């Protein structure tokens, strides 16, 4: 399988701030790759280097086989985190402008198809400033995909969308993927990343901390999570033997257990305290993995280590 993106020892600094630190990453063609990481971890900088908006201080960025210049950019669609649309332009005119910048000469049919698909036909000749946030987001998405890119980079594409539009957009991403487009999308929505991505990459403080399929990532942590629902919501769980962390998910609770803990002993103790409706030994969710890596617990552990 050829690679859509290859980053080799890529480093980028802004003054004294090391935004990306010797990053290696390979994104195979035809995959949906999720970029996750806390705010300020280097996600957007990495995406901008892939798009040749920024250039690395050292290392090499190869996109669709091109390692120099912006030759690949015509085949890369980009949806930025904050919407970038000219307010005074009309929707169709703006989409034609974006398509032409990607080298498309005849794009009227494509634009019409996408407008219809996103239920925006009657807004085609309206100015962007008259659109709602959700509609503007859909227009921005069409702008990114209309030129049939081989690589689609989506930075937080689902922010601010209602569930209906979210489904529409998700469907469009899947459809582009089925047509062979490689999709990279950065998100803070872990559920969405779990549902949509083949592979997940996490960057934290400029360094790669996760890279693999969800199953691979979960396997790194093992079955150390108990999902639990009891009749007594107030029952004390933190002092259960082997339980290291309790996460209240409102309708159920997630217990993280130590590697040597015995789940059966925990269940027996639980049954003494409350009526158990649901007890499931599971791998950690992506959300949990994210929090374990970048949450306050990890930060205080790191600080203690440094101290």
């Amino acid at each position, binding site marked *: 399988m050829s690679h859509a993106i290859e980053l080799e020892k890529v480093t980028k600094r802004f003054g004294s701030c090391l935004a990306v630190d010797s990053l290696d990453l390979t994104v195979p063609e035809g995959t949906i790759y999720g970029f996750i990481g806390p705010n300020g971890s280097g996600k957007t900088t990495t995406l*901008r280097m892939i*798009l*040749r*908006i*920024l250039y690395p201080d050292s290392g090499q960025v190869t996109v669709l086989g091109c390692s120099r210049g*912006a030759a690949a*950019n*015509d085949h*890369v669609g*980009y949806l*930025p*985190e*904050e*919407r*970038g*649309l*000219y*307010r*005074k*332009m009309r929707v169709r005119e703006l989409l034609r*402008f*974006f398509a*032409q*910048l*990607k*080298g498309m000469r005849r794009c009227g049919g494509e634009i019409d198809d996408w407008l219809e698909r996103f239920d925006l036909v009657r807004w085609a000749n309206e100015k962007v400033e008259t659109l709602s946030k959700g509609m503007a987001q859909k227009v*921005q998405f069409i*702008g990114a995909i209309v030129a049939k890119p081989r690589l689609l*980079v989506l930075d937080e594409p689902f922010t601010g969308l209602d569930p209906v539009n979210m489904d529409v957009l998700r469907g469009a991403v899947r459809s582009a993927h089925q047509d062979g487009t490689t999709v990279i999308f950065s998100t803070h929505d872990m559920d969405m990343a779990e549902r949509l991505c083949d592979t997940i990459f996490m960057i934290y403080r400029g360094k790669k901390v996760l890279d693999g399929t969800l199953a691979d990532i979960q396997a790194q942590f093992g079955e150390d999570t108990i999902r639990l629902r009891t009749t007594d919501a107030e029952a004390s769980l933190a002092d259960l033997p082997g339980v290291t962390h309790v996460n209240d998910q409102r309708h159920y609770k997630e217990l993280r257990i130590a590697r040597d803990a015995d789940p059966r002993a925990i269940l027996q103790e639980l049954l003494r305290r409350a009526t158990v409706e649901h007890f499931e030994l599971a791998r950690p969710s992506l959300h949990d993995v994210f929090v374990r890596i970048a949450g306050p617990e990890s930060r205080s552990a790191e600080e203690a280590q440094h101290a």
Partner: protein
Amino acid sequence: MRKILIIAKREYRAMVATKAFVITLVLMPILMGGGIFFQERLRQRVNLDEKRMVVLDQTGTLFDAMSEAAEARNKTAIFDLATGAQIKPCYRLERGPGGKVTDEERLELSERIRRGEIHAFVEIPEDVFAISSSGGGAKAKFYAQNMAFSEEKGWLQQSLNGAVRRHRLREAKIDPEAVDRASTWVTVEGLGLFAKSNDGQSQPAAPKSEKLAFLLPFGIMMLMFMVILLASQPMIETVMEERSLRIAEVLLGSVSPSQLMAGKLLGCVAGSLTIVLAYGVGAIALAWYYDVLHLVPLGIVPWFLVYQVLAVLLFSSLFMAVGACVNDRKEAQSMLIPVMLLIVFPMFIWFSVLQQPTGNFAMWTSFVPPATALLMVLRLTASPDIPLWQPVVGVAILLAATGLCVFAAGRIFRIAILSQGQLPKLRQLLRWIVTG
């Protein structure tokens, strides 16, 4: 190149296809021309109420002559020759008490002025005919509420001097009428220089009124000034929008910063040429309508276009750099001041340049890049005798300055357009320019 043209086309449409552009296009000459028109109208709108002035003639011999002069003026000089309408107030002189004037009399007359009964009063001293050993004359005193800009004072001075001169001439046994005839005024008419015609013959310059000789260069310079402002200034808004709404990020995902900047500048130049076309066609139509088309210096059109394109590029790139650095209009205002000063700099010195367009001052100032375009066009329109090497050197200097500005602005633009936060300091801007 294709992407540059696509950006240029969008930029051009964003500039030209707006109501604001059309309104400004129409309003700009109206406001500028209107200013001159209203000033002229206001100048013509004078108070036609009769103006009474008291003459305190201590000689006892001048009042009658002055009063006659006032009556003569009232019969002819206050009417428009063409329409016969009264355009100036008539003057009536009132004989005041003779002999030495006391402060009480002065106060009483001042009170009359305050009450609006009279307009002014003048004291003519007894020794008004005397000439001092140094050759100076005596002084009369004029009292009025506004003695600084008083037309009446000027007229009184003239008529008093006329009467005094006549008196002195009669004393010297010289016929005043003969002196008047001998003093008949000779006017000097301003004309352009002779030149060789196409068939080698000497040919006079086209007749041009002195007013036109002043207005034409000024008008053409103002046209260029308007074009620069109209075409360059919107650049701040569009770059600010691209920066704040993160449009630049999308664009830079498709084109390089240099392509983006080149496209924007090209669009700007195209917009400026549209403005020139609109105003140029309008001006030529007006010239044709008033049958003064032969006076329009069509020979400077190529120079005008070259200078205008370079000036628009220079100032657009500066505006672009400003737009890329600022977060909002308030921040833009502070950074705009130095750029605007560069644009309006020729406005401070254009009059001196126009007085002597071939002089050293005019030449050297027209080689200072921010002013080169406006001043060189002003000079070329004012005088056909500017040596060819001067506009050529001007173009070379402006070309170099424009190249430097576009280069520096490009470096600022490509860094600033993606950054957010505080307004960059001058030191930071210089570092961006130097290190890229």
